[in-house]
Every structure is written in C-alpha cells, then in structure tokens.
C-alpha cells in the first residue's frame, strides 16, 4: 500500500467542506475545554460520543482529532495565564510561561507555545505517518499470545510507571477491571456481577463510566474544595514574537519534538517525562541560563513542543495496535468500538480510508489551531472569567444529558452518580483515574485474547509464551514490576547515595504540602516517584526562589480529562 497516495486520499476526504467544518468545531471545542478548568478532551469526547453516533464515523473522528490537539493547546494557555497547571504535563509551562506573563511577555509566551505546538504537532504527525505502517506490518504477524502479552504490558506499565503510588495505581486498575467484568460473558453467556439486574446484563456503558469518572467526579471534587477567592488572570493581547524570540525558540521546538514523540509512542511514556527532559536540556544549552525560573522563552518553547509531540506519538500504538495510553486515546478507542470498528493491527487494512482521513485531519487540525488561536487568545482568556457556579453546574448538566441520551433510561443516571462518587473518592485519596479507565476499556479485550490464546493451545498454559515476542514482552513486564524493588535494594547497598537521593526524591511531596507537616512521611512506595519526581526535583533546584505553581503533583501521570 502506497502511504503517500493513501494520505492524499485522506486529505481529499478531510478537506471536504463538511469535514473541514467538523475539524473547526473540534478545534474550537477542544481549545475551549482545554482552557476551562475542570473539563478536558477525554471528557468532551466521551460526552460527544452519543451525539457523534449520528455522524459519519469519519466526520466524528475528524472532530475528535481536533478536540485532542485543541485540548493540549488550551491547557497551555491556562497554565501561562493562571500559573496553575491543569495537567502534570504542563507543570513546566506553568512555571516558565507564567513568569514570562508576569513580566509582561504573555503575548510571546502564548505565541511560542502556539507555534511550537504547531511545529511539534506537524512533525509528530509526520512521524506517525512514517512509523505507524511499520508498526502495523510488525503487528499483523503477531498471534494472540504476543498480543495478549503486549496488552498486559501496556496496562501494567501505565499503572506502575505513571502516578505517584504504584499501590494506588493497581487499586484503581482492579476497580476498572471489575467494572469491565459486569455483564453477560460473551463466550458462555453467563451473567457476571449483574446481581439479577436485567439492566446490568449488557454491561456498564463506557460513555456512562467515562462521563461519571471524569465529569461528575471532577465536578463534585472541585465543588468540595472550590477556591472562593478568584484567581488572578493576566490580561493578554494578540500573541506575537519578535526576531529575538524566534531565534531563541526554534531549536527548543525541534529538540522538544525529538523528546516528545518517542516517549508518547511508548506504552507508558506519557507526556510529562519528555517535558521535564526538554526543560532540563534547554536550561543546560541556553545562553541565558540565569533567565530560567524567571521567564525564559526556551523553557516554554521546548516543553510545549515535547507535550504536543508526545500527543502525536500516543496515537501510534492507538492506531497500530489498538492500545491507548492516555485518557483521550482510551475514549477514542471506545468510540471505535461504538461505531462497530474493530481496533487493532487490522484497522489500517479494514478501515484504511477512515484512518488516513483521521491522520490527514490531524495535520489540518494543527494548522487550524495556529490560524484560529493566535487571534483568539484574548477570547480564551475571557473564558477563564466564566463564573464557577455556571461552569460546574454546566458540567453536571451536560454530563447528565450525555449519559442519559445513550439509552434514555434513568437507571444510567444512578450509575452515573455512584461511579461519580467513586471518582470523587479517588481524587480525595490519590488514586489515579487513568488505570481505571484503561481497565474498563482494555479488560474485556485482554480477557478475549487470553481465552483465544488458551483455546489455540488446547488449555495448555505454556501457550501463553509460545511466541518469541511474547517471551520478550514478559521479560519487559517483569522488569517494569521488579524495577522499584531493585532500586530499593540498590539504594540500601549504597547508603551514601541515599543522602543525595532522599531530599530530591522527597522534593515534590514536601514542597507541595508545606501546609501539612505530615507529608514528610513516605507516600506509599516512594521509589517509584523517582522517575518523574527526581527530575521534578532537579527542575525545582534551579529555581528555588520562584514560587512554585500552586498545584501539587498528586496528579502525576494524569492528564486533565
């Protein structure tokens, strides 16, 4: 299959006036929800699922693609103008970008974020075009055992690597898998966890679960802790950059992209590690290291590019393998299933035109974002002034409407409230939300692969490792699981090192809770925080006097949903 001609066909589909309109709607909607606190792209896609069912699948996915990239862009606007990162991947933007804004350079910060996002998004999408078919070629040769192993790896990696506490991640995963079990078993027709309720027999609708966890849980949680003093929003005009700013931005954009894409494409890469890496690199390479922590443009350009490139990278496993690694991709995967499209390696073969139109619309969406958002930045800034009672009442209103319109039964609203309360509890006690959603979505598919695998081996357990790739993947799984134990042993073996690692490791925990002295006590299993947190610490070291963003890092590894 000739990639270029397929891509051109994709452009031909995506550039029809109707689809262009959906791309524009998606981009505007995505940016708006990215800017607004409390809602994010995953929830928006989930809410729009019932509405989108009346559309052509292609148009629906073109709109979703716009929401996906738009949400990323909107998030950076908020962190620059408010100094409170909505998601962990824009922590850095909040530090450096908000400094710039306070120094009167908000226009330049927004411009470098927007143009950097465009550059990184476009390069990232181009890389997606190059790499995804290669991954697909590799993936179609995989049998059930390997596929099962890869899905297990994705699930465990997201649970174990992202987030501050592995234990709490696994607890969340378990809850998600349990929710995924509800309903009639597809092979034997037995009812599982339905408690004799006929309404539960079809399983819990993924739209209802996603909306409950993301929207209702979030709205209730914010309502419980609503900030009564209005946040200070920095006014901004039209973003622009001077010659000097361009000179200082273009290299960080490219380096950020190079960091972001591979991490995004990995099962548990996420966007936050590359943004930290990019920040540290830029600081080291900059001719003006003294400006870092006081508003260096490189510190916005690099991490923002890394963030967007990671978003593009995430789509590689999503489209090639049917493996989502962030919340928005997970809900988009659920959308495929709702449209009756089977995600996985065969997606390109079976739904080629749709996938290529989706990819083409990523290029288009990126360009639209740049064209639309540079002039609209002051409007987005105004959106931040929306009175909070209306915002959160509106979230609840549309969440209810979206969940109800799936099946038109009030019972779904009861589920919505119960699972929403669960979402509230998870936010209160630091259980990450992403493993739960992935558990709900991937759980049934993993079970299917497991049963297929053992069916092929006639019940022989060794069938699970009958393919060399499966064996390789299990070794990686083992490493992911055992790594923190090894790390612990290594620290014990070299006590001198502990003194150095200790405070850095404790950095974000101690830092984020100056008001709560108890926070010094170890959070769950602290070694795991070493990855992102240690880097976090490094970043903080560089700018101790700068007041850190108000948000804690509890939502490590999570994005605003």
């Amino acid at each position: 299959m000739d990639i270029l001609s397929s891509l051109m066909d994709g452009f031909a589909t995506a550039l029809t006036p109707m689809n262009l309109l959906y791309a524009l709607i998606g981009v505007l909607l995505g940016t708006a929800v990215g800017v607004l606190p409390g809602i994010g792209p995953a929830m928006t896609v989930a809410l729009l699922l019932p509405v989108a069912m009346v559309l052509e699948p292609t148009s629906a996915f073109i709109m979703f693609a716009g929401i996906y990239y738009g949400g990323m862009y909107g998030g950076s606007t908020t962190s620059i103008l408010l100094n409170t990162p909505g998601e962990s991947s824009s922590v850095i933007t909040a530090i450096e970008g908000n400094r710039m804004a306070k120094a009167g350079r908000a226009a330049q910060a927004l411009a470098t974020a927007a143009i950097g996002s465009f550059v990184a998004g476009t390069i990232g999408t181009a890389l997606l075009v190059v790499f995804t078919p290669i991954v697909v070629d590799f993936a179609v040769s995989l049998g059930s055992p390997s596929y099962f192993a890869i899905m297990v790896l994705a699930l465990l990696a997201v649970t174990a690597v992202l987030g501050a506490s592995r234990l709490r991640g696994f607890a969340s995963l378990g809850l998600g898998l349990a929710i995924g079990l509800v309903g009639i078993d597809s092979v034997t027709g037995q009812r599982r966890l339905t408690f004799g309720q006929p309404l539960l027999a079809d399983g819990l609708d993924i739209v209802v679960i996603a909306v409950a966890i993301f929207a209702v849980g979030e709205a209730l949680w914010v309502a419980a802790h609503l900030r009564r003093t209005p946040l200070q929003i920095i006014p901004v005009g039209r973003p622009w950059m001077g010659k000097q700013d361009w000179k200082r931005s273009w290299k960080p954009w490219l380096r950020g992209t190079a960091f972001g894409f591979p991490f995004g494409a990995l099962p548990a890469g996420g966007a936050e590690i590359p943004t930290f890496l990019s920040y540290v690199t830029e600081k080291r390479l900059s001719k003006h290291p003294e400006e870092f922590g006081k508003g260096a443009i490189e510190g916005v350009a690099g991490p923002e590019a890394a963030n967007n490139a990671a978003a593009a990278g995430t789509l590689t496993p999503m489209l090639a393998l049917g493996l989502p690694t962030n919340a928005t991709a997970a809900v988009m995967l659920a959308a495929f299933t709702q449209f009756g499209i089977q995600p996985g390696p065969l997606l390109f073969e079976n739904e080629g035109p749709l996938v290529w139109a989706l990819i083409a619309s990523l290029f288009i969406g990126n360009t639209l974002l740049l064209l639309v958002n540079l002039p609209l930045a002051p409007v987005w800034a105004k959106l931040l002034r929306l009175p909070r009672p209306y915002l959160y009442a509106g979230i609840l209103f549309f969440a209810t409407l979206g969940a109800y319109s799936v099946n038109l039964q009030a019972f779904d609203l009861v589920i919505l409230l119960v699972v929403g309360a669960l979402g509230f509890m998870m936010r209160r006690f630091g259980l990450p939300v992403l493993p739960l959603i992935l558990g709900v979505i991937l759980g049934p598919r993993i079970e299917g692969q497991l049963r297929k695998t053992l069916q092929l081996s006639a019940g022989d357990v060794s069938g699970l490792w009958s393919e060399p790739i499966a064996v390789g993947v299990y070794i990686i799984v083992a490493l992911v699981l055992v790594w923190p134990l090894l790390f612990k042993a290594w620290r014990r073996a070299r006590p001198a090192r502990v003194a150095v690692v200790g405070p850095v490791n404790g950095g974000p925990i101690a830092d984020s809770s100056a008001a709560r002295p108890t926070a010094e006590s170890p959070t769950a299993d602290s070694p795991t925080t070493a990855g992102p947190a240690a880097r976090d610490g490094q970043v903080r070291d560089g700018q101790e006097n700068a007041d850190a963003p108000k948000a804690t890092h509890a939502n490590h590894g999570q994005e605003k949903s």
Partner: protein
Amino acid sequence: MTSLASRLKGRSELGVAALLGAAGALVLLDAARLVTPYSQSDPVGPKTVPLIVGALLLVCAVLLAVNVLRGGHGEAEAGEDIDLTHPADWRTILPLAGAFIANILLIDWAGWVISGTVLFWGSVWALGSRHYVRDGLIALALALLTFYGFYLGLGIALPAGLLEGIL
C-alpha cells in the same frame, strides 16, 4: 503506639481499603457462583479472570491498609479551581447531590425540560450563586435548547413528561 482509637484517627483512607476489600470479595463470590462445565473450546472459562481481578483487589486492600497504618497517604488531586487548604465543603456537595438525585427522580415523569431546569438551577445555587431569577432563566433556556437540539438535530427524543403536547 497508643490505643487503637488514636491510631485510627485521621486514617479515613482505611475506608478506601475497606471498599477495595468489599469489591474484591464481591467479585470473588460472584465468580464462585458461576458453574462452568469444562469445554475444549473455552478452557479459560468465564471464571478465571474474575478470580484474578478479585484477588488483585483483595491484595491491594490489604497492602493499602498496611501502608496507611504505617503512615502513608495518597495525595489529594489539585487543579485550577481547587483550594486544598480548606476541608471538604459538605454544604456544597450535599445540595449538589440533591439536585442530581432530583433530576433522576423527575426525568422520566416530569420530563427533561423540567428536571434539567431543576438540575441546573439547583447546582448553581449549591455552588453559591444567588441570582435566583437570572439563574432560573438560564437553566430553562439550556433545558429547552438541549431538548429541541437533540430532537431536531440528532433525532433523539428526550422525555417530554408533563409537558407532553406542549413542547
């Protein structure tokens, strides 16, 4: 280590462990109830995965309880509009949940336009707005717009309820 009571104080997170444990037990009990004749075409059967999931939940429950008792705690999630310095404000949450439940009870009988208005108006009130008339008008407008938008635009007929025939 003093009395049990003082050790339990401030450990509301143990409730999470209890919930996980209950969920795990539920999944295991439900799985045990399934009867599955061995079949060549499905050696795994519908029981295996629930057993694994139930066990995972139970293990997490125990480990979390131990972790909490030893002083660990999860970090509450932060965000743009969240101020963690004050405790959970139940005087906001409970009316909010009340508006939500009112909507559930009303939606099929009174219809979406009425129940949606109640939901939005009640939520805005719970969240602290006191512009009764303006909020009411906004709520009614939203409910009407979504009702007709869904009906005309998407072909989804939300329940008209008491206003059947008028709308």
